[in-house]
């Protein structure tokens, strides 16, 4: 039963990943990618990593929807009335893809896999938390600050209106001058 579910999800992940390059609308492309990620999340749950699987489903759904909004906004034709293609530099990308696949597949078949030693942990989510908050604490803290700095930097670069536009040159204006009224403090 579980083996059948595993193979169904595995084939679904690969097939919808392939469909990303076959369909011709940005909405369909992104949803095909989302289906692929959802299948991978399901695979993780089937393999006993319920926390990672659920988080993959959760994060990828949000990320794909937000990416969809930006991808459509950046298209030369956001209405999607002309046909689009996901292929760029067809020959080189195809050879890289096939080469990588061949290399990884050869690796899977050639490497002498070790026999399993010990048992899977009773609670993989708990073990993951211990690893992140224990030995990997420095990595996580560094990553957190890098991500935060990136987000703040991106927002600062992207915003066209700063506090001097909102509160005046001497920042003395009591309520901000925003194009859209309403919200906090207005």
């Amino acid at each position, binding site marked *: 039963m579980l083996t059948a579910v595993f193979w169904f999800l595995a084939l679904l992940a690969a097939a919808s990943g392939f469909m990303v390059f076959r369909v011709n*609308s940005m*909405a*369909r492309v992104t*949803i095909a990618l*989302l289906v692929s990620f959802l299948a991978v*999340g399901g695979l993780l749950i089937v393999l006993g990593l*319920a*926390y990672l699987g*659920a*988080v993959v*489903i*959760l994060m990828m*759904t*949000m990320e*794909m*929807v*937000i990416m*969809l*909004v930006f991808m459509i906004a950046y298209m030369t034709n956001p209405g999607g009335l002309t046909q689009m293609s996901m292929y760029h530099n067809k020959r080189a990308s195809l050879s890289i893809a096939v080469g990588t696949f061949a290399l990884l597949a050869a690796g899977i078949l050639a490497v002498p896999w070790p026999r399993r030693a010990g048992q899977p*942990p*009773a*609670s993989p*989510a*708990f*073990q993951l938390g*211990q690893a992140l908050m*224990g030995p990997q604490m420095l990595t996580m803290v560094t990553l957190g600050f890098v991500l935060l700095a990136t987000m703040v930097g991106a927002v600062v670069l992207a915003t066209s209106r700063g506090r001097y536009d909102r509160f005046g040159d001497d920042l003395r204006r009591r309520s901000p001058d925003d194009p*859209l009224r*309403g*919200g*906090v403090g207005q």
Partner: protein
Amino acid sequence: MTSSQPAPGRAMVTSAPLWSVLIVPVLLTAFAIMAVLGDALLAARAAGRPLLTAAAAPAAGAARLLIGQRRRTPAPDALLWRAGLWTVPAAGILAALVIPFGTVTASRMSVGVVWFNAMEVLTWAGLWLAGWGANSALSLIAGYRFVAQGLAYELPLMFALISVAAGAQSLDVADIAAAQSHLWFAVWMPAAFAAYLAGVYAFSFLGPFGAPAGHDVAGGVLAEVSGVDRLAIEAGRWLLLAAGAGMAVPLFLGGAAGPVLPAWAWSAVKTLAVLAGLTWARGRLPALRADRYAEFAWVVVLPLSVAQALVPALVDLTR
């Protein structure tokens, strides 16, 4: 360090056999129907219409939608449109799989809270697609409205879930319910409870968060939908509301624990109480505009829910 289970003791909730997965949609639909009926009766009483005809109206409407023709729009993306519409009820039912009812649960998942969150987030994709697929301007606006609303409600909702999970030191819904044997989380985590209830309205796009299906955009994501598809998305809203009300019981209201009555009765009573409260308050709260609520959510609600998540963390440390 050993990888021992952090929870103080496994709760006495058993996973039902696999066929019980089929009971979940039936039970959830029953709760959703009660909410729809209550909503229709409240609206009829407010308008001074006869209550008996009002009680029959939802069933008649559903029957009409079942036999109704599908409206066609010029050049829709029918596949994505339909997939988006049917994602909404599917998300409600999938989210409800991990909710314990009495002493049984369809799926005793070790990370039930995260699963519930992930399934509720599927409505992001569902509603955006429902807006996009119709190839209609007002539907499209409504789809984007839901994404904007999602960016505002989702993080406070996640922190509310993190608060209760931290309070119980477990992601298992039954363990969270069992951790409230002394005091309900709703009592000592009121901000998390409020953020959670707002999230329930938001992911079922009802009440104050109904803008994606608002009158000002001619029904928004519902504007071009007819026939059985419309029944699916409209039922999906109420299924999501019922799932949210059902999940509030183990997360904040002590689960199935209570005196005299058996466990399943307490689950039913508490779920109905939350559902009735949400249905009653729905007509009494003002509709929120996504752009204004986004600012309020990020400037006020989000810091508040982070501070709320700190409380159970500190309580755990001093235990």
